[in-house]
């Protein structure tokens, strides 16, 4: 079967925000590397896999994205080094792919989506219209889009309408 023009899948993941305390970013990185074997990513990057990943979320901030509850484990390991907050209910996650995925996203996202500028492994903190959004380029042409859950229905409506011509 041919690759579809666009495929949209809603994802359920467990999320936690990590905000390093002042001067503790190096200690946080060492703790994460020892516990999960993942080097915390620098600005505009994510690292890890489908079971657990860490995405850059701003200076000194990361988001953990996991297939199992993660916040309590992180909070225990990072006590005194970072503020950890469970965000699992706070975000609406969508995975989009397909031959026309970039044509679809370009209708609303104001950033350069060309793989030369935004390769797999990249994270972009930006907006879709007036909806703040975090984009992860998971693998070639496969993107994860995270928006605040209260805006998820509106965002899904825009995404479906924008993708309709590429089905």
């Amino acid at each position, binding site marked *: 079967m041919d690759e579809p023009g666009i495929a949209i899948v809603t994802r359920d993941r467990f999320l936690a925000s990590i905000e390093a305390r*002042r001067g503790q970013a190096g200690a946080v990185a060492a703790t994460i590397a020892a516990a999960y074997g993942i080097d915390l990513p620098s*600005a*505009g990057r994510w690292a890890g896999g489908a079971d657990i990943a860490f995405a850059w*979320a*701003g*200076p*000194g901030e990361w988001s953990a994205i996991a297939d199992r509850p993660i916040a309590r484990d992180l909070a225990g390991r990072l006590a005194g080094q970072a503020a950890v907050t469970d965000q699992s209910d706070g975000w609406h996650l969508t995975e989009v792919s397909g031959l026309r995925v970039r044509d679809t996203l370009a209708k609303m996202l*104001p*950033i350069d989506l060309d793989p030369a500028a935004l390769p797999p492994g990249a994270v*972009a*903190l*930006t*907006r879709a219209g007036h909806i*703040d959004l975090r984009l992860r380029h998971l693998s070639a042409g496969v993107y994860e889009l995270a928006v605040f859950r209260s805006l998820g229905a509106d965002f899904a409506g825009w995404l479906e309408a924008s993708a309709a011509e590429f089905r």
Partner: protein
Amino acid sequence: MRLTCPHCGNRGIEEFAYGGDADRRRPDGEPFGQAWMDYVYLRRNPAGAHREWWYHASGCRAWLVVTRDTTTHVVASVQEVAR
């Protein structure tokens, strides 16, 4: 207008929020009077170089100091505020 965020790269102005003149100084210690009136109400409106706060609201949420020419919109520098 576009700004080059030190964390996120070159982005459109719609991602940023303007925070005003970066060279205003709060007259702490002064009794209420002309210094406070000037601080609260008076704004310079220079034709030329201007240092101003910008907040990367839809990006990394860093506060930046942008030096910009108000007559040409040429951005001379973008620096993150020391954390």
